[in-house]
């Protein structure tokens, strides 16, 4: 049911008609030189790029219509595990759009960008406080970029101490970016197992923590939504092997203000500002992946670093001065251009300022409360009979169910359940991750959802399971009410069409 205009599903190129346009060029106000005098013909292209020819009203309608083919967090429940799809306060968009932030050139002289540098410095301080680690670099562009920075920092640390290590450990529950990062940083991945309670298998870890291991990358709470019982033991093992302990901060939303990675023994932490700190996800970015590190890692942080000159011992009454410090001889260097995704920093800083310490703690408490409530509710409603929880424990901000019994008994897979959820107007949880759990369903409700929403979600799962018991075909052929039906991904990959033929 929809109040929406007809959508013919054309692409913007298919709407193109010769002669239509939106852009009007400002008039030429300088003496005109013949083109050939300015750029020799042999360097010029013969044919203009075939961009669409469309007017403003058509562009607006086109993308408005496209937008209506997207499910969005501002309209519905989006419990996509590991992604922290929580509400992004609208204030953040407003402050990020202020001219002084949005129209600031990245190469503006630091003396004329004091507000931006101070904001970054304060954000660094705040993230350091949250992580319990003293030094922060804001440069990485996303979580995985932060991971890469972290592993390269580890390399630099070891090299600086005359060591050359070749392996990095990742649990078998790890997010795919962890092993991919390891390879990309020039290390070999060694997988560590998970024990029966969903913790890192300490024996396996001990066995693999040899002196060619550079680092253990860990997510805590893990991607199973569980807090590592043996976190301190883990830290000891890793440190005794001379390796660093890396904290994948994707699940930080569970523990803000409750405990700190630095206190657990982590050397390096990345934050996903687009998860815990409300940068809107944008359909797949932008994000930002700042890192916090301990003193021993600090010398290697990327260049440049935002610093406050004068610091604590500055002349009283004199304003502090903020600057970019390039003079970092041991730095791993740059990871990207300029100073990082500043627009994201503005939003995350606004978030932290709005909540303060008490607010951030509330966030994590309610995130964990909501997850446990939903889990309990699903249990009470009998959903867990078909989709048992992977590990019977109090969960943190998310939890994993296994669809294996459902697949066996009701003949629908986790994928089918997910697709059927679409018909109920709910975004499915993360599916088939973590890999460890058969037919996994990873559910993260977040703190910004109401009890009514959680109850309704539980109800929908009940309905889908009941329906599947009657007629599994409905779920197996779902979704039925979306703009397109189930899509053939295999065909797409077999003969890839990645651009429109014009």
């Amino acid at each position, binding site marked *: 049911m929809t109040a929406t205009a007809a959508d013919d599903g054309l692409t913007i190129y298919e709407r193109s008609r010769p002669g239509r346009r939106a852009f009007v060029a400002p008039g030429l106000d300088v003496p005109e030189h013949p083109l050939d005098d300015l750029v020799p013909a042999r360097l010029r292209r013969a044919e203009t790029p*075939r961009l669409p020819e469309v007017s403003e009203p058509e562009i607006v309608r086109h993308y408005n219509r496209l937008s209506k083919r997207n499910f969005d967090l501002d309209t519905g429940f989006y419990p996509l595990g590991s992604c922290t799809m929580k509400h992004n306060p609208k*204030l953040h968009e407003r402050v990020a759009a202020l001219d002084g932030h949005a129209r600031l050139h990245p190469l503006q002289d630091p003396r004329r960008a004091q507000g931006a540098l101070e904001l970054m410095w304060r954000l660094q301080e705040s993230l350091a406080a949250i992580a319990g680690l003293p030094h922060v670099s804001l440069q990485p562009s996303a979580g995985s970029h932060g991971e890469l920075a972290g592993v390269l920092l580890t390399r630099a640390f070891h090299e600086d101490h005359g060591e050359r290590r070749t392996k990095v450990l990742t649990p078998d529950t790890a997010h795919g970016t962890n092993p991919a990062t390891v390879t990309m940083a020039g290390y070999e991945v060694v997988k560590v197992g998970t024990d029966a309670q969903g913790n890192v298998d300490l024996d396996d870890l001990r066995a693999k923590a040899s002196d060619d291991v550079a680092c253990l990358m860990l997510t805590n709470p893990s991607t199973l939504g569980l807090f590592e019982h043996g976190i301190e033991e883990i830290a000891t093992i890793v440190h005794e092997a001379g390796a660093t302990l890396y904290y994948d901060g994707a699940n930080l939303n569970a523990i803000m203000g*409750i405990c700190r990675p630095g206190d657990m023994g982590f050397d390096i932490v990345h934050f996903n500002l687009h998860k815990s700190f409300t940068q809107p996800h944008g359909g797949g970015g932008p994000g930002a992946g700042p890192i916090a590190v301990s003193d021993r890692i600090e010398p290697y942080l990327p260049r440049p670093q935002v610093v406050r000159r004068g610091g604590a011992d500055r002349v009283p009454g004199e304003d502090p001065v903020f600057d970019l410090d390039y003079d970092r001889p041991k730095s791993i260097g740059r990871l990207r251009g300029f*100073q990082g995704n500043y627009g994201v920093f503005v939003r995350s800083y606004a978030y932290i300022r709005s909540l303060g310490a008490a607010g951030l703690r509330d966030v994590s408490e309610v995130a964990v409360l909501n997850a446990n409530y939903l889990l309990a509710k699903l249990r009470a409603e009998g959903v867990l009979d078909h989709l048992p929880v992977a590990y019977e424990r109090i969960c943190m901000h998310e939890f994993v169910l296994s669809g294996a019994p459902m697949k066996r008994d009701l003949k629908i897979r986790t994928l089918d359940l997910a697709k059927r959820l679409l018909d109920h107007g709910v975004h499915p949880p993360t599916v088939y991750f973590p890999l460890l759990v058969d037919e996994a369903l990873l559910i993260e409700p977040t703190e910004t959802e109401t009890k009514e929403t959680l109850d309704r979600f539980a109800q929908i799962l009940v309905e889908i399971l009941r329906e599947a018991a009657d007629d599994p075909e409905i779920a197996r052929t779902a979704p039925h009410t979306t703009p397109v039906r189930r899509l*053939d991904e295999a065909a797409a990959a077999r003969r890839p069409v990645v651009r429109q033929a014009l």
Partner: protein
Amino acid sequence: MLRTIGVASLAELFADIPDHLRLERPLDLDPGRSELEVYEELRALAGRNTSTEDELCFLGAGMYDHYVPALIDSIISRSEFLTPYTPYQPEVSQGGLQAMFEYQTAICELTGLPVSNASVYEGPSAVAAAGYVAKLAHDQPSRSRFVVSRGVHPHSRQALATLAHGWDMEVIEAPLHDGVTELPELDADVSAVIVQQPNFLGAIEDLESLAEAAHDAGALCVAACDPLPLSLLRAPGDCGVDVAVGEGQTLGNRLDFGGPSFGFFAATEALIRRVPGRIAGETVDAEGRRGFVLTLQTREQHIRREKATSNICTAQALNALAGVIYLSWLGRHGIVELTELMLQRTAYARERLTAVAGVHALHDQPVVREFALTLDAPVQAVIDRCAAQGINPGYPLGRDYPEHANGLLVAITEKRTRGHIDRLAAALGEAVAAERSRDADPAGATR
């Protein structure tokens, strides 16, 4: 809710956290504030930055002060684009996926290459990512060097070096001669030749001969490109370039002090399975209707893990969306008109400024929208004098190019009119003159 869970207190939910790890005091943060107060604070911080609305800005060097049309804000602020995540469920993500497909098509058109991904982080890291693709493509430890033009953005060279260190690969610099790249002899150990178009000093490179030289040595050719000039210049793909990457900020994204923007990444068909990141592809649904999905996912970390072609996950979808909207807004003819306007005004600016006493062209190569000068005066002092008049004359080259200690890189966009250029010429003239007379008589000078 606690009752349903079956615990007596919130604290019980955190029982797995060892006692002494639990923080018993609040985080060391300022107390939370009301929306109004946070707004006022962020506004005050913004007020301490000199934005391109506050001064006449001729800074470029990788990001440019273009006009972003209003319809972009209006579209990308729609919650349907702003708030979802990566389109893991294509049936309810056709909007985002189709936009990616349209974006990829536009990038292919600009670069003259058949394959584009849906975005990478930004420009310099895209160069590093291209290096990784070259490494993967050769898959031979013997191809252990990148030859990178000194005309490539310093940030790109540095980002590549940061990663190459992890790959045990070396980055060799190809010098500039009269403003353009002069390749050294290329041996069989070269993985890729990496150049920039136009290069950092604004000069148009002869991509075709650079690509040819790379290919002759069995290396790939990577070009980092400024996308708007590509509407005028020979497409990298047509010149034989294997991978074209670049900074997408100029395509409808704001400056944001350097980010978020997006990087684009285009490649030859041969490299399609090496490309990093998301790629949208066309397919059909159960009823045979056209639809779009993320495709070739076996390249990616969530499927292939340690064997992935990249670790990238969250990229820059919203910024790339702004990019394709911008390109649609410009349109096939508009993009050329815009570039030609910049070209003519740049020519005018170059003439005007090099006519100023004490100001010289750093090179005489053809340029599109940016050009390099050398001053007969300390460049930083000159910049400060101009700043006092509300003009930011450009980027000083000294830090990155010690050989051009008083070099100045001046960028022109459609926002910089003839009147602005004339104001710059006057201010620059005064500033250089003042600094020269100060140099001549340092004792008597006051600033």
